[in-house]
């Protein structure tokens, strides 16, 4: 799906506050750019507050893409409800990575994250672009309707 002529589709990308893993972040950034996205990449070790600031600066960002592989997703995202209550971080939050500590993953891991307000958990990075396109399509539809 191509963006509106003249306007680049913008996303905000970054890694959770306690997580320094840079590789996935940089690859996803390059991949999105090669697909024509404008990516505001906040890089590693990014507190949720910084994501919120970025959204404030880029209110048309269609999604906030957060990576977390060090297992600390739940704690690093613990302020998401508070920020949302303040009306911040409104675009859909898409989370991907390795979301809990340990080699055995549990159903509950995702439930806790969704309960915090994460909108989408992407388990296979190949699903990211299709998801962005779907979200974009429904956003466009709502804009036209609204």
């Amino acid at each position, binding site marked *: 799906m191509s963006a509106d002529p003249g306007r680049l589709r913008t996303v905000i990308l970054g890694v959770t506050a306690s997580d*320094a893993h*840079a590789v996935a972040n940089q690859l996803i950034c390059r991949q999105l750019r090669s697909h024509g996205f404008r990516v505001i990449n906040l890089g590693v*070790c990014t507190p949720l507050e910084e994501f919120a600031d970025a959204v404030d600066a880029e209110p048309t960002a269609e999604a906030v893409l957060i990576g977390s592989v060090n*297992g600390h997703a739940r704690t690093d995202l613990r302020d998401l409800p508070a920020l949302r209550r303040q009306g911040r971080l409104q675009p859909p939050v898409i989370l991907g990575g390795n979301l809990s*500590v*340990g080699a055995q993953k549990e159903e509950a891991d995702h439930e806790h994250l969704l309960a915090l307000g994460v909108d989408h958990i992407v388990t296979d990075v190949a699903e990211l672009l299709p998801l962005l396109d779907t979200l974009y399509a429904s956003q466009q539809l709502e804009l036209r309707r609204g």
Partner: protein
Amino acid sequence: MADWSALELSASVAEQLPDWSGAVAHLHDRPGPRTVDILRAADRAGVPAIQPRCGVGGHREMITLLQELEKSHPAVLSVTIDSYTRLRQFDTAASLLAEDAGRLNGYPLVAHGWRRGRELADAVSVPLEIRHGSPDGRELFATALAAGITSFEGGGIGYNLPYCKDVPLDESLRTWRQIDATCGALAKDGVIVDRELFGTLTAVLMPPSLCIAITLLEAIAAAKEGVRCISIAYPQGGEIYQDVAALRAIRTLAQRYVGSGVEVFPVLHQFMGVFPTDPAWASGLILHGSLTARLGGAAKVVNKTEHEAHGVPDAVTNGRGIRTTAVGVSQLFDFVQLSEERVEQELSWIEEEVRELIKPVLAEPDLLAGICAAFSTGRLDLPFSASVHAHSRVVPRRDAGGAIRYADPGLLSLSSATRRRHGQLLSTRATSAPDRPEADELSIAIQDIFYFANREPAHRP
């Protein structure tokens, strides 16, 4: 003589510590071998000492973990620290510890305190090393020392650029200098602290000369502060001739640049990039890494596990990683030898490249300032930097045989001869979409990063 004050610790940690002389007395008196003894013995035997990474949040769980792993006969055990503590978010570490210790990805040593650290050290008969990744590890270091632990990983470059976003290099170099100076003072006093330097850096596709150049600079800085035992860690890249040469280069280059009076031990970190998900492949790669360590003359090898691709390993899996490594360095595989010619060739390349990388820095009047300047101009650099304080312009790539070369050395201070050589070495590597260079770059990068991952069982790549 140094004391705690030389470390300029945060008050909340400082006030908990035992008095300096008591801590030093404990360092002297505690029974059992130190890591330095283990490294010397391994060097004499020609068989690398084996060490797992291991750290869980809870204290009792950590003791159990160490004791479980000890059954697999590692030579050294780790206390791997959680991410919050690494980033000095001691409060978050402490509150998560209280809330649900199992959700920490390591042992929050500062939150637990030095007394519990001593309990860890006393729980097993092998020495412990603190493995972390803190741009500023002074509180951790002080706590570890107070606990009687005499092996401490990290350095002002290697524990900054891969481990945080925005800590200026001069800051991290300054704090690590304080740690090294404290080790220097302790060495004078007869307490040898093993200081392992994290040459693994960002771990993924690291060109050997970069790993060695950066840790060598850290080693020279540490030696200046009086550090007497330095382990230089190098991450297995997966092409065994190159990796063996890199381990040997650590010895030859250290001899030349760090000088006598300092013991320098090469350490192999088993493959540090994206690990295979299949346990059979993972185990094969672990064994491959063990052969690499033995053939390269590593004094120590830090093992991976079959869970690597999935998450922090449990004790059973980690124990198996230790034992698979033991099998790999055992007599069973003694028959494996390499063509010395190919190793020599890689060795001479690495030595030359390291010289080219560090020469301009060593020419500066002040070493630490020289390092900062080199990174800010890009003469020193690394790929996939987590930190904004490196250009991250270097593009590594595997050649047709899997060895890691510079596809784009960026602004690194490498000679044109070296640059040409890397270009040539890469020229036989087929590219998939010569007409779309940018897409191709990305797909080659992905191919290289996932080189060992997802290998098919009976597949010959």
